[in-house]
């Protein structure tokens, strides 16, 4: 089954990290992604720019509205994701647990809806 691991974290705290800390975090994500790749479960993944770079679009009454900023303003925002293919939820949860973001924020695990 395919699952999306969505990494939520505090953007302000993320922006405030020192260069050394940021380097360590990147290295941890690098090792994590490599481990998933070697295990043959990694299908894709990316880091997202902060919500200050977000733009939302919606059409209401035939009129398109474009707004700067995220859909919902919250302290913890989606900062990145991994798409993995594993046998079941337990396997997905054990990968989520190993994600560096799990110790600084929250990982939401959602199954992909196969059509």
């Amino acid at each position: 089954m395919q699952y999306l691991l969505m990494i939520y974290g505090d953007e302000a705290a993320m922006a405030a990290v020192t260069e050394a800390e940021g380097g360590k975090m990147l290295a941890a994500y690098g090792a994590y992604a490599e481990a998933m790749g070697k295990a043959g479960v990694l299908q894709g993944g990316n880091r997202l720019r902060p919500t200050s770079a977000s733009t939302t679009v919606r059409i209401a009454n035939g009129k398109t509205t474009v707004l700067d900023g995220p859909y919902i303003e919250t302290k913890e925002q989606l900062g990145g994701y991994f798409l993995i293919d594993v046998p079941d939820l337990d396997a997905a949860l054990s990968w989520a647990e190993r994600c560096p973001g799990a110790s600084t924020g929250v990982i939401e695990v959602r199954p992909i809806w196969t059509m």
Partner: protein
Amino acid sequence: MTAARLTAEAVARDSYGKLIAWLVARTGDLAGAEDALSDAFAAALAEWPEAGVPDNPRAWLATVARRKQLDQLRRRRTRRDAAGHLALLANEFDTARAGPADIPDERLALMFVCAHPAIDAAVRAPLMLRTVLGLDAASIASAFLIAPATMGQRLVRAQTRIKVTGIPFRVPEPEELPDRLEAVLDAIYAAFAAGWTDPGGTEVRRRDLAVEAIWLGRLVVSLLPAAPEALGLLALMLYAEARRATRRGAAGEYVPLAEQDPKAWDQTMIGEAETLLHRAGAMGMAGRFQLEAAIQSAHVVRRLTGRSDWVAIERLYAALEAVTDSPVVTINRAIAVAETRGVEAGLAVLGSVAGDKRVLEYQPYWAALAGLLARAGAVSASDDAYRRAIGLEPDPAVRQFLTAKRAGLKGINPPASS
């Protein structure tokens, strides 16, 4: 009642969970397995009276249910990955045609599915009763004091969740087993408690639930004989069940543990509980259920010695306090301390939870406080505490008991008006 119906009911009682586990093992579709099995039971009731009851009714039901499952898969195949499903169909079809000589017992895996951490803790016990024992939503709803329609929705939602989130059908690996087993045992205990809280034993469904929970406890023990907490839970439930009949007097009045007649306790059940607890203790891994069972053991020793072993009870509650962080445990320890070291010492322990918001609406806290204050001669304060306890108690028999205790204070000294 016909022989066909009797046989079908007997198979349902003994094998419902086994059949469901076998059906769900490869599809992961709990709701589908239930539908298939209920279709198979319907077919049995239609065919057996005419054709006669088959030699192996369980295998007959398994084969028919498997065929119903194949029909489900065929209907659904169109919208999904066709190749994968065709392979599965071929596989399933071989099994169905061969017919199961005897189906393997995979109920343990089924219980782990029901108590998976991704399932809402409140629905785990109902789900287990539904899935492993085949109880209907209405019976479960009445035991958990929930509207049948609401319970039905919760069960369906949980079953859907198992399927779409991909919760695996397997017994967890040894390193994750202790945590995962705790969730299974908690769910069984919740089912037992739902049956136990009908102290009058007037509602047959709820009383039955305690019996069903003990049955589930036995099942886990038989499938995981080396798990000490599973033994502890079964022992705990048996100690409690052994005293069920003595919790009420002839006129339905509430009888506290200290005033129950030990001769009326079920000695066979207590004997079995003692053996189980001893076995668990020999494994050298204490846990919450073993500690609670040991406390029961120290209470029922009264049937031999005439007195509860309060020194052991105090020590066991202290150990339990360290693993649970529950003010309920502290309240019980305070009662034990009052027995071993005097009322003032007991009141001091009770005072340590007085600021805890969780006890403000907890009847046993106020009843314990009232009892100890009365023994310390603080009649007016005791009277206040009894009033709080009475106001919080939903069971009329217990209310009556507390009211009588409160009235008894007048014998000590007239209480301040309140």
